[in-house]
């Protein structure tokens, strides 16, 4: 399996315009300083300066790929992202580490669970949410080729499915059940896949939609899911406000459609910091807990 770092390095070799930046977070790009030389720039723990400098580099024709933890990149530097990158519509690529539940034991200061909401609120910003390292690597050429700014919810987990070829704004769909559609993105795919198996074993027909790109969203996949199944389920490690549930609601309303929907997200609170398996258990995002919540919603629906 090719890594994110190897792929980024190959792309940088082929395109002189690519520069790799970090605000002293080298977890995903450890070998880069040595290999890339002066085109690797570590500004220290100064996220706002990194984004301002990225805007300057992009203004001069470069394609900066900026690394930091997702919270500091999208929150601390937000006004620089919006004002320097957004208003000028510069091709700055933001790669946010340990987004969502992946910040495990760090606590609320490190929980990027409003990042999608913020980033999709910047005009022309694309938002990518890879399910694993293979998908991340598949996406990378398209992300760097696009003339628009982009935010990537970095995730290099091990893949559990074979992916369809990647194209911006196109979801990946598994199964054609007509009882429920499980809509998700990012590392949660693994757990949602497990939930799908459990539901199928209980005789529930499942369609699993891995959205991959949250902006632009695959409107057709969302609308078809809403039309074809009895219950839509959005599953995200993000606040319910502004993330996938909001995107689905906006998409359907624009088509004058409505659907019975179960949003599974974080509601008006930060999650309990702990090791990742404990977080998933506590917050109800293991395959077993997700399946139980969907079954309960289906039963509730049947009783009405």
């Amino acid at each position, binding site marked *: 399996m090719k890594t994110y770092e190897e792929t980024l390095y190959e792309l940088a070799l082929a395109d002189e315009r690519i520069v790799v930046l970090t605000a*002293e*977070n*080298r*977890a995903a790009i*450890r070998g880069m300083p040595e290999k890339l030389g002066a085109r690797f720039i*570590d*500004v*220290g*723990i*100064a996220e*706002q*300066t990194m984004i301002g400098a990225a805007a300057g580099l992009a203004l001069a024709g470069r394609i900066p790929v900026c690394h930091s*933890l997702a*919270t*500091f990149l999208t929150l*601390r530097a937000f006004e620089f992202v919006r004002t320097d990158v957004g208003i000028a519509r510069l091709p700055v690529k933001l790669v946010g580490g*340990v987004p969502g539940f992946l910040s*495990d*034991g*760090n*606590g*609320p*200061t*490190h929980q990027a669970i409003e990042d999608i909401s913020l980033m999709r609120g910047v005009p022309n910003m694309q938002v990518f949410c890879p399910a694993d390292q293979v998908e991340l690597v598949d996406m990378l050429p398209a992300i760097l080729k696009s003339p628009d700014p982009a935010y990537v919810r970095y995730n290099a987990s091990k893949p559990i499915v074979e992916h369809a070829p990647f194209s911006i704004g196109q979801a990946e769909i598994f199964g054609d059940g007509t009882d429920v559609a499980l809509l998700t993105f990012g590392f949660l795919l693994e757990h949602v896949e497990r939930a799908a198996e459990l539901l199928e074993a209980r005789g529930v027909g499942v369609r699993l939609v891995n959205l991959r790109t949250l902006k632009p969203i695959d409107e057709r996949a969302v609308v078809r899911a809403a039309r074809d199944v009895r219950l839509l389920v959005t599953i995200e490690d993000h606040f319910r406000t502004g993330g996938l549930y909001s995107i689905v609601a906006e998409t359907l309303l624009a088509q004058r459609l409505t659907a019975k929907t179960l949003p599974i997200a974080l509601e008006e609170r930060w999650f*309990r*910091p*702990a*090791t990742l398996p*404990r*977080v998933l*258990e*506590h917050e109800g995002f293991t395959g077993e807990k997700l399946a139980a919540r969907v079954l309960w919603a289906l039963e509730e629906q049947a009783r009405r």
Partner: protein
Amino acid sequence: MSTSHAELEGLALRVREHVIRLATDGGCFIGASLSCTDLIVHLYRQVLRVTPATVRDPNRDYLLLSKGHDVPALYGTLVELGFMARERLSLHLSTEDSIYWHPNRAVPGVEFHSGSLGHLLSVGIGLALDTKLRQAENRVFVLLGDGELDEGTIWEGLLVAAAKGLDNLVCIVDRNEFQANIRTEELTPLEPLVAKFEAFGAKAIRVDGHSFAALDAAFATLPLAPGRPSVIVADTVRGRGLPSIERRADRWFANFSRDEIEALLAELHGAAQATLHSETLVVR
């Protein structure tokens, strides 16, 4: 406020044991916690006007951990001094308590949460301003990391603290010479640090952060200069107490095995250096 240095050494040793024990089952920022263990122990025994009975007293002194990931050293101190029940440390990284890699106010003695660098100097300025408004005697101590000084908010805060004449504000810099995994002077040089703080309007001094005698002298007369914020730059060693991890760039965050923890505890008490296999080169 006149604890013997031998007693302080003993206390610091027990606090370091707590820190080491937290570096397993998910791990903790061990290197960055051991560098400021002596500073925190000294503050609680010799400087801060706060006890378990006065953690909510409006006239207490405040200690804010701005770098945040050094919280194991604070928790060890709070346990040893009776602020916090020892059993809570066994709930580290569980969902049953609020004991994780960064501070949470659910623990008595923790004044504010942190983890995002460069926040608590400004929060400390707010507390110091309130103290001035009340014409009260509280002092506000902010423990900063040296890598944290990269953040622009630190320097904004210093300008404001000097402009407002906040001589009840004391910044302590845990000068362990490391960012996460890189030496500060290799990446973004900070020196001459004392001159920088002075240029921003504070009164600054430099001290050996592992010498209780030197720390006694540094904190003996506060503020360091009337009408100005004080900055005490404490030279420290990351991983202090464990030669196998001292000054090692890759020993910032660590998640060791139980066996490694036992070997490190022995090393702390003078045994040979522990042989460490666990991968620790992780930037959080």
